[in-house]
């Protein structure tokens, strides 16, 4: 089922009746936030941060106590009120496949996921750092979206229900249904290209390569690459106590942090930058593929755009391949 919607405002207004709407919002940078009244989603360009936090909260106190640390703390699950996430790009949706696989055994994750309808936005133009088509995605892919939409040349929106959840979401849509619609268009531009054929297998022999030193050289341990990524999912578990409350929380963590693997004894198996940059790249392109048969990268390019020292994972993988071959 496909509809033509005259303006974004009408679509948003309709979706607000289905649950809390999250969409890219401008806050200096763009991220997926709860869309305030009268607020317009920011659909131009890829958001600076992925929608990961909507499926894996940055901080979630799953045990919480008031007053005294020894009070009996109950388990606090995620808030699973109905939500609509509007404006996720094909790469964001593909990134979510990783969370679906990794957290498959978690009932809490499944409930959160099932409470969420994804209204994905097909990419109108190439972002200078994105490369989804190198890693199995496509800018106009509707895979994983409950509802897809795109903008036509005359500024209208073509909205299509793609799944059962999407059809349920849209069942009382007050929009004109359309049999004939213009095809989505995509404006191509220069962008990174990654040769992935045989890449995971090739990386098997690179653990001891000196190239990791070159790759790690420019890293300043800021961890941005892992925090903007739609496929990263590592976390820590921490206990915190504040003036009147406290508890135990899961909090996003990063393999690029020195403390990530540092043990109480002081021993740290990934004490240096070469070991840490290797962990991130091999997790995505070798370890994860060995377990799940897919790459752990959706090609959004946010890690390239966000790196303060200009590191580029596509160049690094290319260097690794070339460097280790010679």
């Amino acid at each position: 089922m496909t509809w033509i919607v005259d303006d974004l405002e009408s679509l948003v207004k309709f979706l607000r009746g289905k649950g809390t709407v999250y969409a890219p919002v401008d806050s200096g940078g763009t991220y997926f936030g709860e869309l305030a009244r009268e607020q317009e989603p920011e659909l131009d360009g890829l958001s600076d941060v992925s929608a990961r936090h909507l499926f894996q909260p940055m901080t979630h106190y799953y045990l919480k106590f008031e007053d005294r640390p020894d009070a009996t703390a109950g388990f606090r699950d995620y808030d699973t009120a109905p939500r609509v996430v509007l404006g996720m790009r094909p790469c964001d949706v593909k990134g979510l496949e990783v969370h679906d696989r990794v957290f498959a055994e978690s009932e809490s994750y499944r409930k959160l996921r099932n409470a969420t309808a994804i209204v994905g936005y097909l990419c109108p133009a190439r972002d200078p750092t994105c490369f989804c088509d190198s890693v199995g995605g496509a800018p106009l892919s509707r895979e994983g979206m409950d509802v897809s939409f795109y903008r036509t040349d005359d500024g209208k929106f073509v909205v299509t229900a793609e799944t059962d959840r999407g059809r349920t979401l849209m069942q009382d849509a007050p929009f004109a249904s359309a049999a004939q619609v213009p095809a989505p268009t995509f404006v191509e531009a220069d962008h990174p290209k990654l040769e992935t054929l045989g890449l995971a297998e090739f990386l098997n022999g690179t653990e001891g390569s000196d190239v990791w030193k070159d790759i790690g050289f420019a890293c300043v341990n800021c961890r941005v690459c892992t925090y903007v990524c739609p496929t990263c999912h590592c976390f820590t578990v921490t206990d915190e106590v504040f003036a009147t409350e406290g508890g135990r929380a899961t909090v996003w963590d990063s393999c690029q942090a020195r403390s990530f693997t540092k043990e109480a004894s002081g021993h740290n198996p990934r004490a240096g930058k070469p070991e840490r940059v290797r962990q991130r790249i091999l997790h995505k392109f070798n370890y994860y593929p060995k377990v799940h048969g897919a790459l752990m990268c959706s090609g959004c390019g946010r890690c390239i755009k966000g790196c303060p020292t200009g590191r580029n994972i596509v160049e690094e993988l290319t260097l690794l391949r070339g460097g280790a071959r010679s």
Partner: protein
Amino acid sequence: MIDLLKTETAKVLDVVDEAPGLKTFVLEPANAMRFSPGQFVFVSKLGVGESVFAISSDPRESGKIAVSVQALGKNTNALHELDPGESVGLRGPYGNSFPIDEWRGKRVIVIGGGIGLAPLRPVIYSLLGRKHEFQSLSLIYGARLPELLVYKPELERWKGEMDVHLTVDEAKDGWHGKVGVVPKVMTDLALSPENAVAVICGPPVMIRFGHIALKDLGFSDEQVYTTLEMKMKCGVGLCGRCNVDHRYICKDGPVFRMDEINHLE
């Protein structure tokens, strides 16, 4: 993933001083916990934190488990304050276990260093409980100093039940056992690889040189088992830090046969 981190409670039944800075806590889980030798648990105090420990008690004892805790950081120092009767958070057991059934009919040599004996104690209890199924049972155990040897009453008892060799790096007055690091004792004893299985756990350096000693003695990697340790936060293969290559020590381990991991650093 938060539902996979739910914590149960346990009551502290007993606290045993093992060595300076090292105590064993005997816990009674609110919900009965069955485990196999090699598995581990998370013990916590809410508001302080969770830490991971190998289970060091006899798997045949129902209704209680023990962990041996070295006071090193915030959590472990807080645990050392616990008295019998107090309550702690407990979740697990996690991880795989030693394939003791596969060792039937063989000569089993257990090799430990320092607190590395903790995950091996359930193995020894299990082996002794079905002693007749094995050709022979030996223990080679060492620590830096005599006072750092753990489970002293058990060590004395085991001397009557299996072949026990104790050693320290540095002897002191009153020490009548061997002197020298564990790999040296292994070499001096000229351990035979014939129909043997070696199980080794201790500090990383001891495992490394112990493994070399075993190789020199003619042991193949298929005959050597170890249990690995790394910082862990979730215990269920999700938090992303305890991997060696694509394997998560918490989920695919912590017990490995050497041929499964010897190509890794």
